[in-house]
């Protein structure tokens, strides 16, 4: 089941990549389309942040993930390298769970 998803999603993403090389440029390229595409990407990523942070099995839960995400935001603002930021944020959640039982 999962494999079908992996292959399907990979083909779906590839369909976008190859589209640009198959379609004559005059047909699809406008500032508006670029604008829409950029806001779509932002909305999806933001939604993923929200859901990954606050949602657990259909309920809104405030737990160790919240301080971790706040730390992630601060570290991103400070331009800390991605993998370091992710590790530290995960660590914040782990510590909050261990010591504060969040």
């Amino acid at each position, binding site marked *: 089941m999962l494999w079908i998803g992996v*292959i399907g999603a990979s083909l779906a*993403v590839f369909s976008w*990549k190859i589209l640009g090389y198959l379609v004559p440029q005059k047909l699809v390229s406008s500032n508006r389309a670029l604008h829409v595409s950029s806001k*779509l990407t932002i909305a999806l990523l933001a939604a993923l942040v929200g859901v990954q942070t606050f949602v657990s099995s259909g309920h809104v839960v405030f737990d160790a993930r919240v301080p971790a995400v706040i730390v992630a935001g601060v570290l991103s603002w400070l331009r800390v390298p991605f*993998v370091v930021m992710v590790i530290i944020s995960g660590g914040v959640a782990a510590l909050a769970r261990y010591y504060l039982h969040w």
Partner: protein
Amino acid sequence: MSFSVGLATGLYAVSFGALSTLAGLNIWQTMSLSLLMFSGASQFAFVGVIGSAGLSGLTSAVLSAWLLGVRNGFYGLSMSPMISPRGFKRITAAQLTIDESVAVSMAQDSEPNRKRGFWLTGMFVYLFWNSLTALGALAGEAMGDPKSWGLDAAAAAAFVGLIWPRLKDLISTSVALGAAVIAVVTSLFLPAGWPVLLAGLFGVLVALFLKERD
């Protein structure tokens, strides 16, 4: 430049590999995503949705990954006239059409350099991304309970890192806030994964509605 971009992107790959196996994918599925999908945001979204929703979120995981691939379509459009690949080379060029190869290419000052920037970056990133995904995947499998390591929070942090550079103006930030609120609130009554897609629709509508302001 291509080499260092490739290496830096490889660090994202370690996070991806680990988060993927912790979300429940096996090493082969994880590696397949990096080899076949080869697009960071889409890959993180796919394993993120599976990680929180399980198999019931499979449809929306596929759809989320697909929607996050839209920008790759625009990249292809910009690169196509310059690279003009024929036949099989189109498939290779397409696969390597990602944020980094396009960005490095566009930063060059001459057409030969732009072509070289695209191909070299694409190949280096492909090499580092896939080898470091494997490393991350192995590390992920060696870890025990994802939650005690804070890995669910790490996935959220990864998305923060991916969105941060895009929040350059007020409209983008507002879209992000609105999308997050919509996704969280609708999670209370919609099946897992669908709130994210609904939030995506919100982003599209805002962009269409506000086009005159730009």
